[in-house]
Protein backbone atom coordinates (compact mmCIF):
# COMPACT_ATOMS: atom_id res chain seq x y z
CA UNK A 1 0.00 0.00 0.00
CA UNK A 2 1.26 3.45 -0.92
CA UNK A 3 1.39 5.88 2.05
CA UNK A 4 -0.26 8.75 0.10
CA UNK A 5 -3.16 6.48 -0.89
CA UNK A 6 -3.61 5.24 2.68
CA UNK A 7 -3.71 8.87 3.83
CA UNK A 8 -6.41 9.68 1.26
CA UNK A 9 -8.46 6.66 2.35
CA UNK A 10 -8.17 7.64 6.02
CA UNK A 11 -9.20 11.22 5.17
CA UNK A 12 -12.23 9.92 3.27
CA UNK A 13 -13.09 7.76 6.28
CA UNK A 14 -12.91 10.71 8.69
CA UNK A 15 -15.16 13.06 6.67
CA UNK A 16 -17.62 10.24 5.93
CA UNK A 17 -17.89 9.41 9.61
CA UNK A 18 -18.46 13.10 10.31
CA UNK A 19 -21.45 13.14 7.93
CA UNK A 20 -22.89 10.04 9.60
CA UNK A 21 -22.36 11.04 13.23
CA UNK A 22 -22.22 14.86 13.14
CA UNK A 23 -25.95 15.55 13.25
CA UNK A 24 -26.52 12.79 15.82
CA UNK A 25 -23.80 14.18 18.11
CA UNK A 26 -25.21 17.71 17.78
CA UNK A 27 -28.78 16.69 18.60
CA UNK A 28 -27.52 14.65 21.51
CA UNK A 29 -26.12 17.85 23.02
CA UNK A 30 -28.87 20.34 22.25
CA UNK A 31 -31.95 18.11 21.89
CA UNK A 32 -34.32 18.18 18.93
CA UNK A 33 -36.63 21.25 18.90
CA UNK A 34 -40.31 20.41 18.34
CA UNK A 35 -40.64 22.45 15.13
CA UNK A 36 -37.58 20.68 13.74
CA UNK A 37 -38.89 17.26 14.73
CA UNK A 38 -42.10 17.92 12.80
CA UNK A 39 -39.90 18.56 9.77
CA UNK A 40 -37.58 15.58 10.43
CA UNK A 41 -40.52 13.17 10.43
CA UNK A 42 -40.79 13.59 6.67
CA UNK A 43 -37.12 12.93 5.95
CA UNK A 44 -37.57 9.10 5.61
CA UNK A 45 -40.31 9.45 2.98
CA UNK A 46 -38.29 12.14 1.18
CA UNK A 47 -35.06 10.13 1.10
CA UNK A 48 -36.72 6.85 0.07
CA UNK A 49 -38.49 8.65 -2.78
CA UNK A 50 -35.29 10.44 -3.87
CA UNK A 51 -33.42 7.11 -3.90
CA UNK A 52 -36.10 5.28 -5.89
CA UNK A 53 -37.51 7.66 -8.49
CA UNK A 54 -34.35 8.74 -10.39
CA UNK A 55 -33.02 5.16 -10.44
CA UNK A 56 -36.28 4.00 -12.03
CA UNK A 57 -37.08 6.93 -14.35
CA UNK A 58 -33.51 7.65 -15.45
CA UNK A 59 -31.45 4.44 -15.22
CA UNK A 60 -28.98 5.68 -17.86
CA UNK A 61 -28.71 9.15 -16.37
CA UNK A 62 -31.32 10.71 -18.66
CA UNK A 63 -35.11 10.71 -18.34
CA UNK A 64 -36.63 7.63 -20.06
CA UNK A 65 -40.43 7.44 -19.82
CA UNK A 66 -40.81 4.93 -22.67
CA UNK A 67 -41.80 1.25 -22.61
CA UNK A 68 -38.18 0.42 -23.45
CA UNK A 69 -37.23 1.35 -19.89
CA UNK A 70 -37.23 -2.02 -18.08
CA UNK A 71 -36.74 -0.32 -14.71
CA UNK A 72 -39.86 1.79 -15.18
CA UNK A 73 -42.07 -1.21 -16.04
CA UNK A 74 -40.62 -3.34 -13.25
CA UNK A 75 -40.91 -0.35 -10.89
CA UNK A 76 -44.64 0.03 -11.60
CA UNK A 77 -45.13 -3.70 -11.07
CA UNK A 78 -43.13 -3.58 -7.81
CA UNK A 79 -45.21 -0.65 -6.55
CA UNK A 80 -48.42 -2.64 -7.18
CA UNK A 81 -47.00 -5.72 -5.45
CA UNK A 82 -45.79 -3.60 -2.54
CA UNK A 83 -49.24 -2.02 -2.21
CA UNK A 84 -51.13 -5.31 -2.45
CA UNK A 85 -48.95 -7.60 -0.32
CA UNK A 86 -46.94 -5.26 1.97
CA UNK A 87 -44.02 -7.68 1.83
CA UNK A 88 -40.45 -6.49 1.25
CA UNK A 89 -38.88 -9.82 0.22
CA UNK A 90 -41.74 -10.67 -2.14
CA UNK A 91 -41.64 -7.21 -3.78
CA UNK A 92 -37.89 -7.46 -4.28
CA UNK A 93 -38.05 -11.02 -5.67
CA UNK A 94 -40.87 -10.36 -8.15
CA UNK A 95 -39.47 -6.96 -9.14
CA UNK A 96 -36.05 -8.45 -9.82
CA UNK A 97 -37.62 -11.34 -11.74
CA UNK A 98 -39.50 -8.78 -13.85
CA UNK A 99 -36.32 -6.85 -14.74
CA UNK A 100 -34.42 -10.01 -15.64
CA UNK A 101 -37.36 -11.30 -17.72
CA UNK A 102 -37.78 -7.95 -19.53
CA UNK A 103 -34.07 -7.85 -20.29
CA UNK A 104 -34.12 -11.41 -21.55
CA UNK A 105 -37.17 -10.74 -23.76
CA UNK A 106 -35.64 -7.49 -25.03
CA UNK A 107 -32.40 -9.07 -26.18
Amino acid at each position, binding site marked *: *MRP*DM*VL*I*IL*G*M*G*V*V*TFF*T*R*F*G*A*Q*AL*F*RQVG*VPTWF*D*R*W*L*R*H*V*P*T*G*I*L*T*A*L*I*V*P*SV*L*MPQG*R*LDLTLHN*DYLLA*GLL*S*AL*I*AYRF*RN*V*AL*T*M*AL*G*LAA*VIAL*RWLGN
Partner: protein
Amino acid sequence: MFAEKPLPVKRAVNAEFWRAVGDSAPVMLGVLPFGITYGVVGVSLGLTPAEAILMSLVVCAGAAQFISVTMIGMGVVDFSLIVFTTLLINLRHLLMGASLAPYLTKVPLGRQAVLAFVLVDESYAIMINRIRARGYDESYQLGTNTALYVTWATSTILGVAMGEYIPDPLAWGLDFAMPATFLAMLVPRLVSRTSVAVCLTAAVIAVASALYLPGKWYIIVACLAASLAGGLLEGGGEDAA
Protein backbone atom coordinates in the same frame (compact mmCIF):
# COMPACT_ATOMS: atom_id res chain seq x y z
CA MET B 1 -16.36 10.10 26.68
CA PHE B 2 -16.10 6.41 25.79
CA ALA B 3 -16.03 5.30 29.42
CA GLU B 4 -19.34 3.43 29.32
CA LYS B 5 -19.23 -0.34 29.18
CA PRO B 6 -19.83 -1.87 25.77
CA LEU B 7 -23.00 -3.92 25.47
CA PRO B 8 -22.01 -7.53 26.23
CA VAL B 9 -21.86 -9.47 22.96
CA LYS B 10 -24.33 -12.06 24.24
CA ARG B 11 -26.96 -9.40 24.91
CA ALA B 12 -26.30 -7.45 21.72
CA VAL B 13 -26.42 -10.46 19.40
CA ASN B 14 -29.94 -11.53 20.29
CA ALA B 15 -33.06 -12.50 18.36
CA GLU B 16 -33.53 -8.90 17.12
CA PHE B 17 -29.99 -8.91 15.73
CA TRP B 18 -30.69 -12.01 13.66
CA ARG B 19 -34.10 -10.75 12.66
CA ALA B 20 -32.37 -7.64 11.28
CA VAL B 21 -29.90 -9.80 9.36
CA GLY B 22 -32.86 -11.64 7.80
CA ASP B 23 -34.66 -8.38 6.97
CA SER B 24 -31.45 -7.10 5.33
CA ALA B 25 -31.23 -10.04 2.93
CA PRO B 26 -33.10 -8.38 0.01
CA VAL B 27 -30.86 -5.30 0.25
CA MET B 28 -27.71 -7.41 0.62
CA LEU B 29 -28.54 -8.97 -2.74
CA GLY B 30 -28.71 -5.45 -4.20
CA VAL B 31 -25.40 -4.38 -2.59
CA LEU B 32 -23.50 -7.44 -3.83
CA PRO B 33 -23.19 -6.47 -7.54
CA PHE B 34 -22.15 -2.92 -6.59
CA GLY B 35 -19.42 -4.21 -4.25
CA ILE B 36 -18.13 -6.63 -6.87
CA THR B 37 -18.14 -3.89 -9.50
CA TYR B 38 -16.31 -1.52 -7.15
CA GLY B 39 -13.64 -4.17 -6.51
CA VAL B 40 -13.16 -4.82 -10.23
CA VAL B 41 -13.15 -1.12 -11.17
CA GLY B 42 -10.94 -0.05 -8.25
CA VAL B 43 -8.14 -2.42 -9.20
CA SER B 44 -8.48 -1.74 -12.93
CA LEU B 45 -8.18 2.03 -12.26
CA GLY B 46 -4.90 1.61 -10.43
CA LEU B 47 -5.57 0.85 -6.75
CA THR B 48 -3.70 -2.12 -5.32
CA PRO B 49 -6.03 -4.91 -4.08
CA ALA B 50 -5.18 -4.04 -0.46
CA GLU B 51 -5.99 -0.33 -1.04
CA ALA B 52 -9.32 -1.15 -2.70
CA ILE B 53 -10.32 -3.39 0.22
CA LEU B 54 -9.05 -0.91 2.84
CA MET B 55 -11.25 1.79 1.30
CA SER B 56 -14.35 -0.41 1.65
CA LEU B 57 -13.47 -1.20 5.27
CA VAL B 58 -12.67 2.39 6.31
CA VAL B 59 -15.07 4.49 4.20
CA CYS B 60 -17.93 2.06 3.46
CA ALA B 61 -19.75 4.45 1.10
CA GLY B 62 -20.47 3.14 -2.40
CA ALA B 63 -20.97 6.33 -4.41
CA ALA B 64 -18.02 8.17 -2.83
CA GLN B 65 -15.73 5.18 -3.42
CA PHE B 66 -16.73 4.86 -7.08
CA ILE B 67 -16.12 8.56 -7.69
CA SER B 68 -12.81 8.72 -5.84
CA VAL B 69 -11.36 5.68 -7.66
CA THR B 70 -12.48 7.28 -10.92
CA MET B 71 -10.57 10.44 -9.93
CA ILE B 72 -7.53 8.36 -8.97
CA GLY B 73 -7.82 6.57 -12.33
CA MET B 74 -7.71 9.96 -14.09
CA GLY B 75 -4.51 10.76 -12.24
CA VAL B 76 -6.06 13.05 -9.63
CA VAL B 77 -4.18 11.76 -6.56
CA ASP B 78 -4.85 14.88 -4.53
CA PHE B 79 -5.71 14.51 -0.84
CA SER B 80 -7.83 17.64 -0.37
CA LEU B 81 -9.71 17.29 -3.66
CA ILE B 82 -10.71 13.66 -3.10
CA VAL B 83 -11.53 14.11 0.58
CA PHE B 84 -13.63 17.23 -0.13
CA THR B 85 -15.51 15.45 -2.94
CA THR B 86 -16.18 12.57 -0.55
CA LEU B 87 -17.56 15.01 2.01
CA LEU B 88 -19.93 16.57 -0.53
CA ILE B 89 -21.19 13.20 -1.80
CA ASN B 90 -21.85 11.98 1.73
CA LEU B 91 -23.50 15.14 3.09
CA ARG B 92 -26.89 13.45 2.67
CA HIS B 93 -26.00 11.26 5.66
CA LEU B 94 -26.35 14.35 7.87
CA LEU B 95 -30.07 14.32 7.07
CA MET B 96 -30.36 10.61 7.81
CA GLY B 97 -28.45 10.99 11.08
CA ALA B 98 -30.66 13.91 12.10
CA SER B 99 -33.76 11.86 11.34
CA LEU B 100 -32.54 8.92 13.47
CA ALA B 101 -31.17 11.09 16.32
CA PRO B 102 -34.43 11.34 18.34
CA TYR B 103 -34.59 7.53 18.63
CA LEU B 104 -31.01 7.12 19.86
CA THR B 105 -30.99 9.48 22.85
CA LYS B 106 -30.94 6.53 25.29
CA VAL B 107 -28.08 4.72 23.52
CA PRO B 108 -24.69 5.59 25.12
CA LEU B 109 -22.53 7.94 23.05
CA GLY B 110 -19.77 5.45 22.21
CA ARG B 111 -22.26 2.85 21.00
CA GLN B 112 -24.15 5.49 19.01
CA ALA B 113 -20.84 6.40 17.31
CA VAL B 114 -20.17 2.75 16.43
CA LEU B 115 -23.68 2.42 14.99
CA ALA B 116 -23.19 5.66 13.00
CA PHE B 117 -20.14 4.17 11.27
CA VAL B 118 -22.39 2.05 9.01
CA LEU B 119 -25.17 4.62 8.47
CA VAL B 120 -25.59 4.05 4.71
CA ASP B 121 -28.64 4.50 2.44
CA GLU B 122 -29.56 0.83 2.79
CA SER B 123 -29.19 0.49 6.57
CA TYR B 124 -31.10 3.76 7.02
CA ALA B 125 -33.98 2.45 4.88
CA ILE B 126 -34.15 -0.81 6.83
CA MET B 127 -33.97 1.02 10.17
CA ILE B 128 -36.74 3.55 9.44
CA ASN B 129 -38.88 0.69 8.18
CA ARG B 130 -38.41 -1.11 11.50
CA ILE B 131 -39.08 2.11 13.48
CA ARG B 132 -42.31 2.69 11.53
CA ALA B 133 -43.54 -0.86 12.13
CA ARG B 134 -42.27 -1.76 15.62
CA GLY B 135 -40.12 1.03 17.05
CA TYR B 136 -36.36 1.45 17.51
CA ASP B 137 -34.10 -1.35 18.75
CA GLU B 138 -30.32 -1.11 19.21
CA SER B 139 -29.58 -4.78 18.53
CA TYR B 140 -31.65 -4.57 15.37
CA GLN B 141 -29.57 -1.63 14.11
CA LEU B 142 -26.37 -3.50 14.99
CA GLY B 143 -27.65 -6.51 13.04
CA THR B 144 -28.47 -4.48 9.94
CA ASN B 145 -25.12 -2.66 10.10
CA THR B 146 -23.16 -5.89 10.52
CA ALA B 147 -24.99 -7.59 7.64
CA LEU B 148 -24.39 -4.67 5.26
CA TYR B 149 -20.78 -4.05 6.34
CA VAL B 150 -19.87 -7.71 5.89
CA THR B 151 -21.65 -7.80 2.50
CA TRP B 152 -19.83 -4.67 1.28
CA ALA B 153 -16.43 -5.96 2.45
CA THR B 154 -16.97 -9.48 1.09
CA SER B 155 -18.24 -8.32 -2.29
CA THR B 156 -15.28 -5.92 -2.63
CA ILE B 157 -12.90 -8.80 -1.94
CA LEU B 158 -14.77 -10.94 -4.50
CA GLY B 159 -14.50 -8.18 -7.11
CA VAL B 160 -10.80 -7.65 -6.43
CA ALA B 161 -10.12 -11.39 -6.59
CA MET B 162 -12.14 -12.08 -9.73
CA GLY B 163 -10.88 -8.99 -11.51
CA GLU B 164 -11.73 -8.96 -15.17
CA TYR B 165 -12.67 -12.65 -15.33
CA ILE B 166 -16.32 -11.85 -14.68
CA PRO B 167 -18.70 -9.97 -16.97
CA ASP B 168 -20.24 -6.72 -15.67
CA PRO B 169 -22.41 -7.86 -12.72
CA LEU B 170 -24.59 -4.73 -13.01
CA ALA B 171 -25.61 -5.71 -16.57
CA TRP B 172 -27.78 -8.53 -15.21
CA GLY B 173 -30.24 -6.08 -13.66
CA LEU B 174 -29.44 -7.15 -10.09
CA ASP B 175 -29.12 -3.47 -9.17
CA PHE B 176 -32.93 -3.27 -9.35
CA ALA B 177 -33.08 -5.19 -6.05
CA MET B 178 -32.43 -1.88 -4.27
CA PRO B 179 -35.18 0.36 -5.72
CA ALA B 180 -37.65 -2.57 -5.47
CA THR B 181 -36.84 -3.05 -1.79
CA PHE B 182 -37.03 0.68 -1.09
CA LEU B 183 -40.43 0.80 -2.85
CA ALA B 184 -41.75 -1.89 -0.52
CA MET B 185 -40.59 0.29 2.38
CA LEU B 186 -41.99 3.52 0.93
CA VAL B 187 -45.52 2.35 0.10
CA PRO B 188 -46.64 1.66 3.71
CA ARG B 189 -45.57 5.22 4.65
CA LEU B 190 -48.03 6.81 2.21
CA VAL B 191 -50.96 6.72 4.60
CA SER B 192 -51.88 10.40 4.78
CA ARG B 193 -52.41 13.25 2.35
CA THR B 194 -49.31 14.96 3.74
CA SER B 195 -47.08 11.93 3.19
CA VAL B 196 -48.32 11.55 -0.39
CA ALA B 197 -47.57 15.24 -0.98
CA VAL B 198 -44.08 14.78 0.50
CA CYS B 199 -43.47 11.80 -1.79
CA LEU B 200 -44.68 13.61 -4.92
CA THR B 201 -42.61 16.70 -4.12
CA ALA B 202 -39.53 14.57 -3.55
CA ALA B 203 -40.14 12.64 -6.79
CA VAL B 204 -40.45 15.72 -9.00
CA ILE B 205 -37.56 17.61 -7.44
CA ALA B 206 -35.31 14.52 -7.35
CA VAL B 207 -35.72 13.95 -11.09
CA ALA B 208 -35.35 17.64 -11.97
CA SER B 209 -32.22 18.06 -9.88
CA ALA B 210 -30.72 14.69 -10.87
CA LEU B 211 -30.82 16.01 -14.45
CA TYR B 212 -28.89 19.17 -13.65
CA LEU B 213 -26.92 18.76 -10.40
CA PRO B 214 -23.71 16.72 -10.04
CA GLY B 215 -23.24 13.75 -7.73
CA LYS B 216 -25.78 12.98 -5.02
CA TRP B 217 -27.01 16.55 -4.55
CA TYR B 218 -30.42 15.59 -5.89
CA ILE B 219 -31.07 13.49 -2.78
CA ILE B 220 -30.30 16.40 -0.46
CA VAL B 221 -32.27 18.97 -2.47
CA ALA B 222 -35.30 16.69 -2.92
CA CYS B 223 -35.36 15.61 0.71
CA LEU B 224 -35.00 19.17 2.05
CA ALA B 225 -37.76 20.53 -0.21
CA ALA B 226 -40.11 17.59 0.42
CA SER B 227 -39.79 17.53 4.19
CA LEU B 228 -40.07 21.30 4.34
CA ALA B 229 -43.32 20.99 2.37
CA GLY B 230 -44.45 18.24 4.73
CA GLY B 231 -43.73 20.31 7.83
CA LEU B 232 -45.60 23.30 6.39
CA LEU B 233 -48.61 21.27 5.21
CA GLU B 234 -48.90 19.55 8.52
CA GLY B 235 -49.16 22.66 10.64
CA GLY B 236 -50.85 20.99 13.59
CA GLY B 237 -48.44 18.05 13.66
CA GLU B 238 -50.88 15.16 14.22
CA ASP B 239 -50.73 13.90 10.65
CA ALA B 240 -47.11 12.77 10.46
CA ALA B 241 -45.93 9.88 8.34
